[in-house]
């Protein structure tokens, strides 16, 4: 199935295929919405993760807080942001990490009007195919 949105750079559209791949990862993340689950997770991350049949790659990305890798493996940011929030990282700082810019220069970019659309529409503009 051709996906007309696959040529957008630096973007994962969370479609049904990604949702299927990331299901148990995302369902783990969403449990962290509640304090009692955060407490259990923070007390013993490995043991908590045993309750969710995610892939070894997903599990490793959770433990290492590899924020982009989590998306590559089917995570969605509304879910992974719950893991970030548990670590005291808000949406803006999470974006700072995912872009590779770092928190400070990302915040600076946003104050100056954000990332321009020019040069950011197509993968070809990023030198990707």
């Amino acid at each position, binding site marked *: 199935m051709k996906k*007309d*949105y696959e040529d*957008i*750079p*630096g*973007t*994962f*559209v*969370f*479609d*049904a295929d990604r*949702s299927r791949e990331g*299901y148990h990862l*995302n*369902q783990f993340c*969403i449990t*962290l*919405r*509640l*304090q009692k689950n955060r407490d259990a997770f923070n007390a013993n991350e490995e043991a908590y993760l045993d309750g969710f049949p995610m892939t070894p790659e997903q599990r490793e990305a959770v433990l290492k807080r590899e924020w*982009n890798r989590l*998306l590559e493996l089917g995570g*969605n*940011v*509304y*879910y992974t*942001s*719950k893991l970030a*929030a*548990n670590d005291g990282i*808000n*949406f*803006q700082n*999470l*974006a700072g990490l*995912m*872009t*590779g810019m770092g928190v400070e220069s*990302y915040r600076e*970019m*946003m*104050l100056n*009007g*954000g*990332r*321009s*659309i020019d040069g*950011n*529409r197509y993968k070809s503009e990023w030198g990707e195919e």
Partner: protein
Amino acid sequence: MARITAGVGVSHVPAIGVAMDTGITEQPYWQPVFKGFEFSRKWMAEKKPDVVFLVYNDHCTAFDASCIPTFALGAAATFTPADEGYGPRPVPVVKNHQKMASHIAQSLILDEFDLTIMNEMEVDHGLTVPLSVMYGDKKPEDDWGVLVIPLAVNVVQYPAPTGNRCYNLGKAIRRAVESFPEDLNVVIFGTGGMSHQLQYKRAGLINPEFDTMFLDKLTSDPVGLSKMPHVDYLREAGSEGVEMVMWHVMRGALDDDVVEVHRHYHVPASNTAVGHIILENKNA
């Protein structure tokens, strides 16, 4: 009979709620965001709707990945602000016009919209932030001063409903409201957007030209605007910019001819362009 008299489009950035809840709205970063809602709060106080029909999206709060309804209409008596990971927002419980919600649900299903009816539902910032910016500071023991019928739209998992479907849903909501016998003044909110991308390497995308075009066409060419394919939102307005499809529900529920009585646009609030518009039916 009940009538929809006006529509409100408004972003629902969570950080705006946090700014209000922590009392930092006068800080230089936030002051211009809130300045744009001064008119709106006065307008709300004058307009005094009995019911707000509030179109929003849940952000993996009431709905996790196990159940993903395209359109979920809230038919419960009340909706409690949810804990999204930082404790629930300190705002009032949201009260429904339950009889009207049931009526609208039945009418929409017979009108061939495939609703999911929710008789229990928590509500997240997608619903409470629009109420906060339009009604001002309210504590948990206060009352919003309005009944709210919530409609949650899936925009998290692709595909969201098409703009055209949303626009036509607005028309069906209007028919449903106008066939409800109580004499009620209803204002409809479409929320979410404007341009923003929260994820991956392109995060931080802001496209003011797109946003301005969108706000303009709500008055000048709403039907044409509603035909825009999803890929244009995703590319031009960022992966989370697709939330804007919800504004078409609001627009579809109004007259063909509307007057724009207020507009507010500001960058940034956290990762997002804040957009806000008030449209009145000409004969309201």
